[in-house]
């Protein structure tokens, strides 16, 4: 199940998204700058509701380095 980081243009779009995602039976995360961390189910729900968003996910290939905690 792919995870996406998405961002909304303004508060109005964010509000539309909240209502479109209210009944999606999967958890999501809200973070600053009108961004959300969501799953594929949320992406589909937003598309069905015609809510505009930008997918800003950065995919790292198999040779990508893993962040190391201090």
């Amino acid at each position, binding site marked *: 199940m792919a995870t996406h980081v998405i961002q909304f243009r303004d508060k109005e779009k964010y509000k539309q998204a909240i209502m479109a995602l209210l009944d999606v039976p999967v*958890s999501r*995360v*809200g973070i*600053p700058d009108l961004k959300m961390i969501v799953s594929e189910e949320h992406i589909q729900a937003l598309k069905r509701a015609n809510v505009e968003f930008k997918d800003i996910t950065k995919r790292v290939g198999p040779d990508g380095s893993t962040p190391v905690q201090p």
Partner: protein
Amino acid sequence: MAQRPFNPDALKPHATSWLQPNVCNWSSVWRYTVLVPVEQIQSDGTARTIATSDDLTNLELMFIEHLGGITFLPPVKGLGCRDPKRPRETLETNKHAAYLVYAPAAYVSDQYFQALRAELQEALVEGIVMVERQEALLL
């Protein structure tokens, strides 16, 4: 008393810099679950909207501003009676928006969430808005 919009400014006096949780290895934090009623469905089929889309948006953006982020859980439905003395007549189903938030294991967090509960109860004209707290250790 009439329902009014949720007012995030009511929480500003409690949103100190201490409220941002220290999210790192071996941090002891408090995890709050907040259930905000969005719809009340009575046994005769009458449905009433409680928290509006504006309320939910303002609440979510306020949590992000004050606590750095939130997890929005799938909606939670519960069945209960509004008046325990008249369970059959007042049986209702409530649909809730459920938020999970980390905060520091400190008194300021309890103050913040008690103020939140009071503001939600007053704005939505609800007898009790459920806010629960659990202790968590981040590994």
